[in-house]
């Protein structure tokens, strides 16, 4: 399962630590009260809501437990997790439904 080496892992950990801190510190540390341009803020508002679905979709459409074969049960569990999160606005309920669905897949498969 593990296909990456230790060096890569530590480069990522250190790179992310530095990068995340820089993102969090940039404004509070240096920007003072200066404003960011509107167009930039407008795009930044949609980063998480665009990157996360872009990451998830291929993992759901071609799930790794089936070896990348599209599978209706996996799609259904994914849809359920998303729907519960959207309708309840609650990450925890969504995660619980997802994990229950996964257990069901595991027991049936």
């Amino acid at each position, binding site marked *: *399962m*593990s*296909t*990456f080496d230790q060096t890569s892992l530590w*480069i*990522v*950990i250190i790179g*992310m*630590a530095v*990068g*995340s*801190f820089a*993102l*969090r*510190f*940039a*404004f*509070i540390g240096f*920007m003072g*009260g200066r404003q960011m341009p509107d*167009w930039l*803020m407008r*795009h*930044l*508002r*949609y*980063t*998480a*809501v*665009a*990157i*996360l*679905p*872009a*990451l*998830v*979709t*291929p993992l*759901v*459409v071609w*799930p*790794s*437990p089936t070896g990348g074969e599209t599978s209706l049960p*996996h799609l259904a569990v*994914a849809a359920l*997790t*998303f729907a*519960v*999160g*959207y309708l309840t*606005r*609650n*990450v*925890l309920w*969504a*995660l619980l439904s*997802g*994990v229950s669905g*996964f257990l069901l*897949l595991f027991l049936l498969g």
Partner: protein
Amino acid sequence: MASTTPKSLFLKGLVDSLPFLLVASPFGLLFGVLSAEAGLNVLEALAFSLAVFAGAAQFTALQLLQENTPLLIVLTSALAVNLRMGMYSASLTPYLGAAPMWQRAIAAYLTVDQSYALSIVKFEDEPEMSLPQRMAYFFGTTSVIAPSWMAATVVGAWVGAQIPASWGLDFVLPLAFLAMIGPMLRTPAHMVACFVAIVASLPATLMPHNLGLIVAGLAGMMAGAQTELWLEQAAARSKAKQETAP
């Protein structure tokens, strides 16, 4: 409001943050389990949580590392997921920006969804709070969550090491992301961004080195920003129409 010392505000922040523990702990646990499945030992998983302290970005990096993605793309994608931390930092600056440098540095490290969400509401509701009171509240909101995130990672990594890879736990990772996405879709522009990113992500997988993730993400961001602009303009037009009507 006479007895709102920094200490009592620290405790207030702590208490306000307790419900979030129900969310942070399972995700920390899951991160630990999945990093064990990916081959990380307990120490490496803890170092990851301790150094980065941002759930969604950690999950992203873990997934991409397993797909043998070039490191530059792993870092770019994971940090893109974390860009919202920059926005949080920008929005907290008017309230905390005047604090001593060491406090600002610690506050920056502790800027996460939960501490931001709780603090910004508090600061906006009570503009009379002093700087030390605000800092105390902010630190209070992370005083339990941060150690719980680390502890949950360790427990998860330890448990995960006992789980055989044949359980196919890797499918829990996209489920964890899906659980986070639903509650984020608060406006039509969010939904457009999400939808465009989903549609773009499938053909984008044909691009080498997982570059498609960044392309699909950018497409979603541009779609969201453009929708927001259109909706604002439409709202302004209909308002102007109402005002000129007799």
